[in-house]
Structures are given as C-alpha cells and as structure tokens.
C-alpha cells in the first residue's frame, strides 16, 4: 500500500502497470467472437444438412439460397412496398399505444381511487393472450389499414399502460416532498417530478411493447391484408417459396432489433440516473 505514497513508489507502480501483458483482442471481443462462431456454425450445419440430404430444401431452403434471394428481393420495389406497409402500421400503432398508455396509465397510478377501480380489469385483460382477441377485433373493425393499426395498438398498449401505472405509483415520496416544500403547483409536480421519475418504467414497457406490436402487425396481416411483410411471408410460405419467406422473416427481425437499439440509446441518454 505504501508503494504509492512516495513519488518513487508511484513511478514504480506505473512502470509495473506498463509491463502488464496487453489485452489480446480475443479477450476484448470475446462475446462477439464466439457469438459469430455460433451463428456461422448454425448456418454451416443448415447448409450441410441440405447437402447431406437430411433436410428437404423445398421446405427449409438453404442459407445460400436465402442470401441470394435477399440480394434480389430487398432492393426490389415490390418488397419495399410490403416493408413500408408494415412499418407504417407499426409506427403509427406504437405511437398511439405510447400516448394512450402513458396518458391513461400515469393518472391511474397516481390517484388511488382510479387505481382501485381499474387495476383488476386491466390485470384480467392482460392475463389473456392478446392474439386470442384478434379475430374478435377483426370482426369489430373490419379489414383495412385502420384495423391493422388498431390491432397493433391493442397488442402494444398494455405493457405501456401497466408500466406507466407502476411508474406513477413508485414516485419517491422524498422527491414529492421537495416539490411541495418549494411550493410547486400540481402541474409542476407532474412535469418536474412524476414524469421524469416514471420515464425508466415507460421505456422499459416500450421495450416489451415493440415485440408485441410486431407480432400484432404480422398476425393481423396474416388474417386480412394484401400488403405487408406478414402477408408476404404467408403468401410465400404457402407457395413454398421458402427463401423469400425467410428473407422477410430476417428483415422483420432486423427491424425489431433496430427499434430496440434505438430504445436502448434513448434509455442511456435520458435515464442514465436510474
């Protein structure tokens, strides 16, 4: 311990540190390295399985075929139309779900009476698999872009509402007391304390909602659409054009990953304190 106390000692310490072996890049990128090996290995097995005759390419396609199809499909206008169609209903639906979930959820968590009234209903409905409701909703809303958005909203809104409720309930009393001691109005209490405090909860809810929204959008398209990636996958799978279907699946997955990455960025930017 006393090696640091003198200037000589410090020089010795620094010297010792620089003599440490440098970190090998295999250690630094450990997870990336092995993760890539895993994925590549899986693709290799897949291709090998088809070549060896264990897998029927009519049903499973091959990685190579999927890749080649991707190069043809992704830049094409046709595919672009489907992609945009799904993306539109996703974004619109998520936006509405976010607004609705927060606007309804925060007061519900804040006012004990409201919470007592609505919480059992929400918990009960949330317990039912949301996809089970879809045929019913389709009957109510009919076929069309609006109903697709409604289904996305239905799929996405519950985690957002429930998390907003939680966020509002768990606003720390200490912070509320600070606001009151500085004579904050109710509106000020909401915007300067309740809302920032709930933000991590809301963003966490958004994380779940993104996944559910994508499922909702795709399933809605299975049932009643003529456009969109879900429709595309259904169409291509039914015609045994598996490679095209897989391409669309991968595109959807990448889309979901992109959205969640955006969310992670927002969380790091605005919720670093929690």
């Amino acid at each position: 311990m006393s090696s640091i106390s003198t200037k000589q000692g410090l020089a010795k310490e620094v010297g010792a540190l620089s003599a440490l072996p440098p970190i090998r890049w295999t250690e630094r990128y450990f997870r990336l390295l092995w993760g890539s090996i895993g994925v590549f290995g899986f693709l290799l097995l897949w291709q090998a399985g088809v070549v060896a005759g264990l897998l029927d390419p009519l049903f499973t396609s091959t990685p190579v075929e999927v890749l080649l199809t991707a190069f043809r499909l992704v830049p094409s206008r046709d595919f672009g139309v489907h992609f945009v169609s799904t993306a539109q209903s996703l974004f619109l639906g998520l936006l509405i779900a976010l607004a609705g979930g927060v606007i309804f959820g925060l007061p519900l968590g804040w006012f004990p009476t409201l919470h007592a009234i609505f919480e059992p209903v929400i918990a009960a409905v949330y317990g039912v698999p949301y996809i089970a409701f879809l045929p019913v909703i389709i009957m109510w809303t009919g076929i069309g872009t609006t109903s697709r958005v409604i289904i996305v909203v239905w799929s996405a809104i519950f985690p957002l509402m429930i998390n907003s409720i939680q966020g509002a309930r768990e606003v720390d009393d200490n912070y509320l007391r600070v606001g009151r001691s500085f004579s904050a109005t109710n509106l000020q209490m909401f915007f300067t304390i309740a809302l920032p405090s709930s933000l991590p909860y809301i963003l966490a809810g958004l994380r779940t909602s993104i996944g559910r929204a994508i499922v909702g959008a795709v399933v809605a398209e299975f049932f009643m659409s003529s456009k969109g990636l879900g429709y595309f996958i259904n169409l291509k799978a039914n015609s045994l054009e598996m490679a095209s279907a897989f391409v669309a699946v991968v595109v959807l997955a990448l889309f979901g990953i992109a959205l969640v990455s955006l969310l992670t960025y927002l969380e790091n930017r605005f919720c670093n304190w929690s």
Partner: protein
Amino acid sequence: MSKKIIARNVVAIYRGKYNQEPVLACNGVDLEVEEGAFVSIVGPSGCGKTTILYAIDGLLPINGGEILVNNKRVTGPGADRAMVFQSASLLPWRTVWGNITYGLRLQGELNHEKVAKIQSLIDLVGLRGFEKRYPSELSGGMQQRANLARALAVNPDILLLDEPFASVDAQTREKLQVELTEIWARTQKTMLFVTHDISEAVFLSDRVVVFTSRPARVREIVEVAIPRPRSLNTKHSTLMLDYVKRVWNLIEIST
C-alpha cells in the same frame, strides 16, 4: 430583535402513510426564534422534532395552537422558508446545477443576475466544478452541500434543517458543521436545526431547545454562551463539554 418564528401551544398529529394509527407528535410546543439566530432542537428519538419542523415549513397541518412566521400564520410552504431535508433528495434526473436552481425555476425567477448569484452560492458550498455532474456521481457530503445550496438559492428568510448530516460519515460531518457555521455567519439567515447529535447542536447553535419524549413539549431551552467564531477545537473545550453534559442530562430525564 424581531421574532421570526413563533410557535404557541402547537398540537400536531402525525399520520403515517399506509393507514397507520395516527400519533400525537406534539402536545403544546412553545418555541420562538429571533431573526438571524441559530437554534437547534434536540430530544429523544421519535419525539416530534421533525414534525414541528415540517409544520413550520407548512408541509404538515397542525391540530392545535398556532405557528407564526414573520407574524403571519403559516398555511402552507412559502418563499420565506426553505427546507434542507435529511436525505439529500436531489432529483436524480437533474444535474447539480439543475437541482440547485430547481426552486428558482419553479418560481420562474431564473435570470442572468440570478445565475451569477447561484455561481457564487456554488462556490460558497464548495461545489465549483461539479455543476454538470449528476447526484449519483456525488458523495454523501457533496449531495448535502448541494441540498443546502438548493435551499439557499431561493433566498429564504429562514432555513429549516432536518438532521442534514445524519447520513454523512463522521469526518465529513465535522467539516460540514464548520462550513455551516461559516455560511450562517455570511448569509445571516435564521436557522432552525433538528438533530440527534448533541455536540453538533451545541457546537452550531445560539440556543438548544430540548424536547420531551413524545408527545413533545419543550422541556428546557439552553442558552449556549460559547463565543463565536467557533472552530473544531472548540468541540473539545471544557466549556463545550459542560454544555453537552447539561443537554444530555435534560434528555436523560425526559426518557
């Protein structure tokens, strides 16, 4: 010297949050604080010291008696009083600067001149260079400094301090005590300080008010005639130890 705070025969009932049994915290507290004085309240644990402080700040309604600040009845929090809470309670999503200017922002009174004053306030509490940090990056002592600065920033007549140094380590606490006396000497604010630490109370104050155990009344008021300015050396002087013994005995009798 005008009386800044007058509490007469205050009765206060404290209601816990989750439908707990209401508790009679204060039963006939009489208290007076002159302008510019530093007064401490000590007493057995849970006796109602914090309750009376919150009542004076207007955060708690009282059930009997009256509290006058600047000869006006207290009906709620106000710009003439500011509280320094026990846990720093800095809003974690705001920077140090954002926290210290919080009260001013709420009042809509943050402008260029104020900015310069805030900067000198930050220097006064020793947080220069930390303005852009977040509370989670600060030590306990630094958080309490920011807590203090936040209360001073709205320029209240009266500062109410609720055991602000309770959760700070002993060495930092002594440092902060000295700094507090210096800040008090410089700003000349009226300060009402609640603490469990008797030597802290004697060291800081002109007068120490000893509460009985719950339901609280004022047992006795001890005038601390130790000359100012007081340094850390004063803490070990016989004069100081005598006062501490006196206050201790008063509390012993109460419990």
